[in-house]
């Protein structure tokens, strides 16, 4: 763990980090784009989750929805990741000890594992339930955990700023 702390402290002293901190506009501007990136990711993921739960686009095959949403989810993810990295670079030292930030990182890891398991298991047999209004239990469980985890990520992400002060 001290290694991570050392990296965080070193990043904090870099030119990029200080310049984001010293500019009155950089941080809020990056933060806004970060928030909208999250909206693109979570919004598109939520629509797939709601389809898995049989709540929207019931007539459309699950795989077809997933395939069409994915490019936009990844685009949003790229925006969220790059801006998130910049925000972390600016505040790396304080983020390290921030419990809301730490929780958010753990939830992010979990929300990444979730679709991985989904794709390696139940989604492999998607052709057997592609058109089902109500999808298999494991698919619905994936959807619920995805929705809960993403909500948690938003909550803890916002908390970072409240805990810092």
């Amino acid at each position, binding site marked *: 763990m001290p290694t991570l702390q050392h990296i965080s402290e070193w990043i904090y002293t870099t030119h990029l980090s200080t310049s984001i901190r010293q500019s009155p506009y950089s941080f809020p501007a990056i933060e806004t784009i970060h928030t*909208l990136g999250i909206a693109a990711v979570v919004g598109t993921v939520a*629509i797939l989750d709601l389809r898995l739960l049989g709540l929207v686009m019931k007539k459309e095959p699950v795989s*077809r929805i997933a395939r069409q949403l994915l490019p*936009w989810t990844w685009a949003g993810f790229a925006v969220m990741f790059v801006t998130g990295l910049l925000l972390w670079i600016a505040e790396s030292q304080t983020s390290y000890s921030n419990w809301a930030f730490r929780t958010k990182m753990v939830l992010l890891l979990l929300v990444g594992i979730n679709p991985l398991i989904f794709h390696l298991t139940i989604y492999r047999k998607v052709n057997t339930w592609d058109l089902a209004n109500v999808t298999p239990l494991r698919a619905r469980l994936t959807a619920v955990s995805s929705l809960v985890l993403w909500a948690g990520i*938003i*909550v803890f992400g916002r908390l970072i700023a409240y805990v810092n002060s």
Partner: protein
Amino acid sequence: MNVLLGLSHWLGHTHLGIFVRDSSYAFPAIEMLHLIALAVFGGSILLVDLRFLNLGFKTQTIQAVARELLPLTVGGVAAMAISGVLMYAGSPMRYFHNPAFQVKMALFVIALFVHFSLQILAARSKSLPPSRTRLFRTAAVASLLLWFAIGFSGRVIGYL
């Protein structure tokens, strides 16, 4: 303007307004709900507009996408409006004179009209003549720019 000012004063003095103002947890909690609603709302708005631009969900018709996502865009905007009013009630005068807030509200009224008139029109249509394509594309670009600007000015409120 006087009506809005009077309404704002009244809202700030209701039990709800006083509760939001005095509690140290109410504001952050409402703000988080506002952001969760933003995620669902923003994503579904994006997908409706991408369909209007012929860039996403092409296997479904414009009408089907507009209809299927209407509960999400309407529900999302309602959740954001309710949580927004609650945050406003906590200290109306702080926001009433905030230029970023004023810009956000003006853009919000325009965006509500532009986006939802088109989405509802599409959702209710049986078939869309090709001549409508340009209308939908223009509206989608306007909608995306407006919602983006609303998000941006929303963030600026806290910095002014």
